[in-house]
């Protein structure tokens, strides 16, 4: 709204998803891997184990190249990217947390100097001093996590800050501690997993067996702490966000992927590496890394989706509209509120073009228009302009956790015009279930968790339902007017009558 919108042809959501996931996968290793280095170094010194010392040097080199270059620069990359695609929220965060970031920067400075000295001075420093340098690295790296976790968890659960605007309320928000625990456990697990990866390339079978078993501890043992920590984290979410766990389809899919990949990861590490450390090979280590990446990526995605429709919960919507400005923008209209529109008024000639600009401004943070990931057009096949206008005006009632539409009635029509034009012109089925999916399922389930209709409608005949549908907007102003034809209406009524009768009772209101 306040800022120009970067038009990314393949979807700006991809940019942040890819950069952030890659960064997170390396930066958590930068913390946990540091702890592993000092722990393993102590072990090598205690047992006078030159094979382990030798491997540690090579692992440190890998660690340096991965975390200092890729980890650090992708971290800057996240920052660049959020500034480009979410400037409003980035500005908010910088204004609230500039000193937290400055403090994190101090830790980061110590971190990079320490890891360079550590990696370059294996043969130069006395053993004990070298080990202390390793601890300095880990302490600085962990403290940078302690700081950044305050900002990340704030976005999801700002808690009292929304009323007080006090820094400490924002930083030590309800989700801070559980989130820090989850991240710390993940750091330790990644410290062990990356070890298995580099170790699997070693030709020293004894070392592989010994260190492999030790590293496997680092994976499965902290994993036991994850379920209670995640449960605690979810408990800190406000109700409307927790419902997304059950109602947002992406969250459902990614939760499934998360459980599957992390469960398999822990089982394989326990069963194949810890119990049988001699089995460790790159054929096992690489798939373990893939599973870990899948678990991490899906967790990040779930976290982002649970925050919907916000970038800072309760303060800034995901499409850069500040919550406090919604009413003012609605009254003035988007075109009059933003300096970045070509047109200042909507005419029949420019309606679709203005709709496209509205789409880029209000929707493109999460959606594409015609095709691609989360594209809207394909979801609107078979729908008419009037109905889509009704949907546009009610985005905040939809299943996915969408922000409210902040435009006026004319702007809703213009956006709907562009969206209908973007929808494929495929023939559609008039089967009752297909009609339900097309016209009702965005906001309702029959008997599921999301605004179920079964309880209210069970016992109503198909004929009565057909009458009800035709005047639905007059019964409830949150519903858009029925704009389908009579064939669709009757098919829908028959489907609903049957589905509601078959649905388990007590599941709706």
């Amino acid at each position, binding site marked *: 709204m*306040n*800022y*120009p919108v*970067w*038009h*990314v042809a393949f979807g700006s959501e991809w940019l942040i998803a890819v950069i952030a996931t890659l960064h997170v996968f390396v930066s958590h290793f930068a913390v946990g891997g540091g702890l592993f280095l000092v722990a393993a170094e102590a072990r090598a010194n205690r047992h006078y184990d030159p*094979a382990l*010392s*030798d491997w540690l*040097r*090579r692992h*440190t*080199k890998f660690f340096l*190249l991965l975390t200092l*270059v890729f980890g*650090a*620069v*992708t971290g800057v990359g996240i*920052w*660049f990217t959020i*500034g*480009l695609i979410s*400037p409003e929220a980035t*500005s*908010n965060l*910088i*204004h609230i947390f*500039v*000193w937290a970031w*400055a*403090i994190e*920067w*101090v830790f*980061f*400075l110590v971190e*990079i*100097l*320490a890891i*360079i000295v550590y*990696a*370059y*001075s*294996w*043969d*130069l*420093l*006395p053993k004990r*001093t070298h080990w202390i340098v390793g601890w*300095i690295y880990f302490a600085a790296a962990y403290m940078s996590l302690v700081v950044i976790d305050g900002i990340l968890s704030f976005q999801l659960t700002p808690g009292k800050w929304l009323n007080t*605007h006090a*820094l400490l309320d924002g930083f030590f928000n309800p989700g801070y501690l559980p989130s820090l625990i989850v991240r710390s456990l993940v750091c330790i697990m990644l410290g062990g997993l990356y070890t298995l990866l580099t170790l699997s390339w*070693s030709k*020293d*079978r*004894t070392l592989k*067996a010994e260190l492999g078993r030790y590293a496997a501890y680092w994976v499965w043992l902290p994993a036991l702490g994850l379920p209670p920590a995640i449960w605690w984290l979810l408990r800190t979410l406000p109700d409307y966000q927790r419902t997304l766990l059950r109602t947002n389809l992406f969250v459902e899919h990614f939760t499934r992927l998360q459980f599957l990949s992390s469960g398999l990861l822990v089982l394989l590490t326990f069963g194949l590496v810890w119990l049988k450390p001699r089995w460790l090979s790159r054929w096992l280590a690489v798939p373990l890394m893939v599973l870990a990446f899948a678990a991490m990526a899906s967790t990040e995605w779930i976290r982002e989706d649970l925050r919907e429709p916000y970038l800072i919960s309760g303060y800034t919507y995901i499409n850069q509209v*500040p919550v*406090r400005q919604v009413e003012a923008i609605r009254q003035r209209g988007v075109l009059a509120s933003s*300096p970045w529109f*070509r047109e200042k008024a909507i005419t029949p000639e420019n309606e679709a073009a203005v709709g496209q600009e509205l789409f880029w401004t209000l929707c493109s943070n999460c959606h594409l228009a015609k095709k691609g990931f989360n594209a809207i057009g394909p979801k609107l096949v078979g729908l008419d302009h009037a109905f889509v206008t009704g949907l546009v005006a009610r985005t905040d009632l939809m299943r996915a956790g969408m922000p409210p539409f902040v435009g006026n009635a004319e702007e809703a029509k213009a956006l709907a015009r562009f969206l209908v034009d973007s929808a494929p012109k495929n023939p559609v089925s008039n089967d009752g279930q297909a009609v339900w999916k097309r016209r009702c399922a965005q906001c309702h389930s029959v008997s599921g968790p999301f605004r179920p209709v079964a309880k209210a409608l069970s016992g109503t005949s198909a004929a009565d339902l057909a009458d009800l549908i035709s005047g639905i907007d007059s019964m409830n102003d949150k519903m858009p007017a029925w704009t389908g034809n009579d064939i669709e209406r009757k098919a829908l009524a028959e489907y609903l009558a049957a589905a509601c009768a078959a649905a388990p009772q007590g599941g709706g209101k």
Partner: protein
Amino acid sequence: MNPAAIPPLDAMPVPAPIWLLKGLLWVTFAIHLVLMNLTLGGSLLSAVYAFKGKERDLDVSRKLAKTLPFAMPFTITFGVAPLLFVQVLYGPLFYSATILMATPFLAVIADLIVAYYLMYLLGWKWKSLGRLQGYLATLVFLMLGYVGFTFSNVYTLLTSPDRFRALYLADPTGMHFNLADGTVIPRFLHMLLAAVAVTGLYIAYLGQRRLKLEPELGRWQFKSGITWFAGATVANFGVGVWWLVALPREGMLTFMGGSGLATGAFAIGLVAALAALMVALLGINSLRPMPKLMGAVHFLTLTIVCMVLMRDALRDQLLKPFYNVWSQPTEPQSVAIGLFLVLFVLGLAVCVWLLRAARKAAKEKGTRGEDVLLGPGLMDSGLHRLSAVDSQALRGGGPESRTPGS
């Protein structure tokens, strides 16, 4: 002119006094400049010396190449800090300008990652690269040059918010550079020549350290470095004038009495640059060049500080019709500021301890501290001195002699 196309100030007040943020911006940016000069200029001169091809040239080229992976992480880290403070102070302009050139701006990240890895390749695998050394160093230089060039575009575009809307409507896919602004090229060249000058002094410094053991080579290297420094500095007077006359009238007048601070910084910076040049040239034939060299370094540091202040004053002057950085509402987070300052001092103390420990150990082992901390890769530090076979032998038996879990 459409001043309306500047996004409004953030609803949250600036959480610090403006002067503090400005001060931190200046300090961290000045350090970033010096480090950036070493990486950008280092890669360029490493390529030049590599192409010259004589043994003594290759030696300088190698030393520069080995400095790169060490200077780079600090260049980036000291670049991040001013970027943070710029976003608090100039957020509405910074975000808008970067969005307009989002594609080349974000490409900086991919470019940096690749350039960074190439630096390690260059520094660590120097010997085995053979004739490719010069080409690889050139590639690194071009990739780093791209970063500087992009930032020159961002920071000039940032001062022209009256053009934001037209640029956005012309192309919203973030593909703009700011080449319509005649100051971009001289500004970038000014920075590039400064990088060569600073690297020249660094080469001279490394040269004078060789004087005791290899007096001839040391003297040659010292002269060579000073020549680069002097040549680039003289050329930079010319490019500086080009930049100055390319500025809009009100920008130029800032340095001609329009602003006391800017005019003072300009005068002192000029004199200090001239003094650095003179002192460095005097050192060329001196038997003990170190004091002269350090004199040049001090004068150059003063010049860099003045340039940072001038750059900042120019930005505020050009933004005058649109944006007053000093008039933003502030609400200092005193506790957080205090905590930051305390941790900053503690962090610096830890850094000093780390450097001292490494230097002391290096000296005890008979390696020069500089060689550990200013360049050699892990290869040189004996990372692979113990091969797997050696370690087996040391352990007194094959892998079968131990049982897992013992």
